[in-house]
């Protein structure tokens, strides 16, 4: 599955449960209706289908968008500022020809 099946099953169950309670409270379905049992089951199925379908978000195997600019450090602002010298100091003792 591409989505989140556990989140889908749990939240789908409560979605169906609360939907049934809401429909009863506003007078749409009677208290003895089998819909109060069926809606949580349908909610679990709906959540699992959503996790399997996963219509939202970016797929991990999709290539990055072509509109992104290629990295170019030479054009970055502030690149002409002097950078601290992190190279090791020259060691004259190791220079060729300096040995006695």
């Amino acid at each position, binding site marked *: 599955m591409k989505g*989140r099946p556990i989140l889908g099953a749990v939240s789908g169950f409560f*979605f169906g449960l609360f939907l049934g*309670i809401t429909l*009863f409270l506003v007078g749409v379905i009677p208290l*003895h209706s089998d819909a109060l049992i069926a809606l949580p089951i349908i909610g679990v199925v*709906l959540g699992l*289908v959503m996790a399997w379908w996963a219509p939202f*978000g970016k797929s991990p195997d999709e290539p990055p968008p072509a509109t992104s600019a290629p990295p170019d450090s030479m054009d970055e602002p502030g690149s002409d500022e002097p950078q601290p010298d992190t190279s090791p100091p020259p060691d004259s003792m190791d220079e060729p020809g300096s040995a006695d």
Partner: protein
Amino acid sequence: MQRRAAAVLLFGMLTVLLVGLLAIPASAEITQGSCQGSATFPEKATDKVLDAARPRSLVFEAPTGATVNYTGNLGPGASASDDPVPFVGGVSLQLPRTSIPIASWEGETEEFSDSGTYTYELPAGIPAGTGDIEVSAWHNHTGYGNCAAVVSVSIAGSPGVAAAVAGGLTALAGAGTLAAGRKKP
């Protein structure tokens, strides 16, 4: 193409299930025996009498509190017996696939009928303005058969805060269900 097929399949499944489940058949209300009974709500402006023979599809709107005049008998022509006869009965609230008892009675009597007044006040926590609530009652008079009846009632008023809270929780859980459709990183 695969997404469209899944959406059509899901929508079709939900439609078929909901249409089948929301259709509640109407049927007779005295389901057993030939007993008679009624309750009169004198404080109501209209539709004052809740009769046991009332069609189940015709929902009776009950106030949250009232003094009710009731009468009932075991059947046409039923008269008192010479000796006390044991009886037992009760009232149940119908839930999906089950029921819960909310009142019961038992004892011995020589009478085959009863009448009087009963005052009730529903607790404040019970939501009003809801869908139909089906209540079934039964009575067994030993040696004279059983009696059972079903009535549909609703409580007068507005669901108010309870419906708002339930609607909010539905939206929250619905958002969680949609979030399950987000691809894993």
